[in-house]
């Protein structure tokens, strides 16, 4: 049973990590609480469906185009709705909720409330320690680790990453030092939305596409980033796996209560916050920055 819990925990955690890292990044850099993050993840899933089912593209091509389209959509939304009110954090929060609802209603009008599906990028399964793992799940696992390594590399080893970190540390000083703050924020936003789009492209074939699919991951993602410490990428990554493993344990230990996996995971978040209100890595990340 242990091996099943470990493998399923890793899979659950990886799916959440893909979403939470992107969310944390844009919060850390621009202080934007982007509630529409999972709505963009949903948009990517719908774009794949559109490309594959309506335009007859291969699933890989549809996935690539959907990622580009979603990034473009995210940047346009930022320019139009978030940038003008960026200095007012609560206004941004409300605006992104509204934006997510608008995206939901657009897809509801366009595709109805039907449950749709797209084919996986990798079919079949493979056995590990006597447990069957779908190849698509392996892709999720790989993508989550790549996303973390890629983000770390980008932030720590590239010039653009340096700019982003400077902006995150002190926007005004960064501006005075000649850093194009707007460009850095746009770059961070592009990466953040890109990760939501990658999550959509990889997770959509495992799940169902419907106009409300953004709500459940949003709850989990917010719980993860709060647990990990708002803005901490490392914290988000680790918290994703904590909640992922908790869910897997619940299913195996309490099969009759499998539906409680979400609430139990959220309860753990509350317990941790009671002991450490800033989240697991809230303070340490502040210092790192």
């Amino acid at each position: 049973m242990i091996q099943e819990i470990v493998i399923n925990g890793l899979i659950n955690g990886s799916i959440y990590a893909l979403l939470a890292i992107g969310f944390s990044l844009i919060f850390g850099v621009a202080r934007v609480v982007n509630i529409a993050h999972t709505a963009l993840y949903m948009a990517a899933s719908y774009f794949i469906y559109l490309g594959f089912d309506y335009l007859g593209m291969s699933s890989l091509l549809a996935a690539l185009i959907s990622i580009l389209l979603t990034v473009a959509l995210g940047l346009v939304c930022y320019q139009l709705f978030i940038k003008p009110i960026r200095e007012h954090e609560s206004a941004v929060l409300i605006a992104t909720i509204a934006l997510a609802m608008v995206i939901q209603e657009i897809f509801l009008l366009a595709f109805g409330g039907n449950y749709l599906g797209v084919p996986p990028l990798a079919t079949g399964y493979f056995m590990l320690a006597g447990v069957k793992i779908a190849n698509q799940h392996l892709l999720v696992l790989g993508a989550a680790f790549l996303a973390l390594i890629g983000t770390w590399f980008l932030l720590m080893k590239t010039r653009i990453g340096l700019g982003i970190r400077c902006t995150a540390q002190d926007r005004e000083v960064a501006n005075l030092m000649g850093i194009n703050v707007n460009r850095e924020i746009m770059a961070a936003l592009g990466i953040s939305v890109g990760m939501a789009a990658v999550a959509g492209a990889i997770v959509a074939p495992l799940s169902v596409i419907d106009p409300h699919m953004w709500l459940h991951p949003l709850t989990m993602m917010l719980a993860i980033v709060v647990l990990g410490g708002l803005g901490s990428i490392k914290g988000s990554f680790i918290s994703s796996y904590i909640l992922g493993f908790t869910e897997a344990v619940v299913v195996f230990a309490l099969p009759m209560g499998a539906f409680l996996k979400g609430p139990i995971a959220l309860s753990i978040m509350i317990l941790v916050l009671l002991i450490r209100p800033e989240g697991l890595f809230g303070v340490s990340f502040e210092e790192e920055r």
Partner: protein
Amino acid sequence: MKKSCFLRGVFLALTFCVGACFPVWGAEPIKIGVIGPMQFTQGEGQWNGATLAAEEINKAGGVLVNGAKRPIELVKVDSNEFLSIPDATNAMELAISRYKVDFLVGGFRSEAVMVMQDIAMDNKKIFMGCGAAHPQLCERVAKNYDRYKYWFRVTPINSKFLVKVDFLVLDMVAKAMAKQLEIPKLKVAVVAEKAAWADPIVGIAQQSLPKMGMEIAGVWRPSPTATDTTAELSAIQRAGANIIFTTFSSSVGIPFAKQAGELKIPAPLVGINVEAQKDGFWNATGGKGNYTVTVGTYARVKIDDKTIPFFDKYEKQFKEAPNYTAGTYDAISILKHAIEKAATLDADKLVPFLEKTDMEVAAGRFVFTKDHDVTWGPGFITSVGTQWQDGKNMCVWPYNWEDLTYEGTVPYKLPDWVMEYYKKK
């Protein structure tokens, strides 16, 4: 003067001719409100079924009421009941007070339909249920006839009978497993979404399966909106289940079937999976839902002379097979039949005629029970068990049940990977 008299005469003659040739045109329409979650497949099915019925009736001249043929006018009422029950009550109020409908068909979520039912009853409007299965909806008729007599259920069958069919289909699969794979005692994983309607089914399964000679491998209750059920599937396989008995009405039915197919879990899926009744299931699961068995209302088999023509017409017009909510087609046919017999639209006068309904509709021979529910059993509405076989949702039950096999029914097929798994063992 002469000229104006002549023109008046011509005008009157023309009016008479037009009226005589097209009696429906001038007559006041009978307004039927089709109420349901219109942004979702269930609502679409309700609207499509009603549209087909109304088109057929209007093409044939309309509904004969007191010697005059009156057309049917449908009013689409979006209840949004999946997301909000208050929206559903508002929609019902709107249909009655603003659109002034004469009759109502539809409703889907039992919790929402209960409230909608009360509003319809307050206004003495005949409401033909085409979606909710909860027994209480009809028990109310038995308990308080004078208030609830305007309610009639057309589809689906009462959830008590739905459970009966569910277990009959499970029994068919169990027998196939035992016979073809020579498994002495089958282990069944009971997987039911966490919803009120599924609770009694889990209870009955826990009591009945041992009596049916099967062992329970475990009970799993995922969330109705779960998107990843890999952990549940791993646990089910670990428990050594030979059959997975499903009870799903929500989206979880898709990822569960899809992931079970992708991982080739060596246990066939059988039970209720509302999503598997729909044509979109095949695409939504990317074909991985092959061999999934579900209980349903319609299949392209000859239940009676009306089933296949209805099925084909529906498929041709709407490019998909009808799901059970398309029973609005039958509801409107039943309503027309009663109106023509009663020669009135008065709800109080119509009720006794509806109660005497005994006619063939697309779902089979339709007779209301005393409490205005669907009569279930051989010779009446039985429902069907369908299985996805290589992209087609085929009828597999009833198959030699009570000497009943509908023309076009095919034998149940065990998934090829299940066969391989047990043969290798």
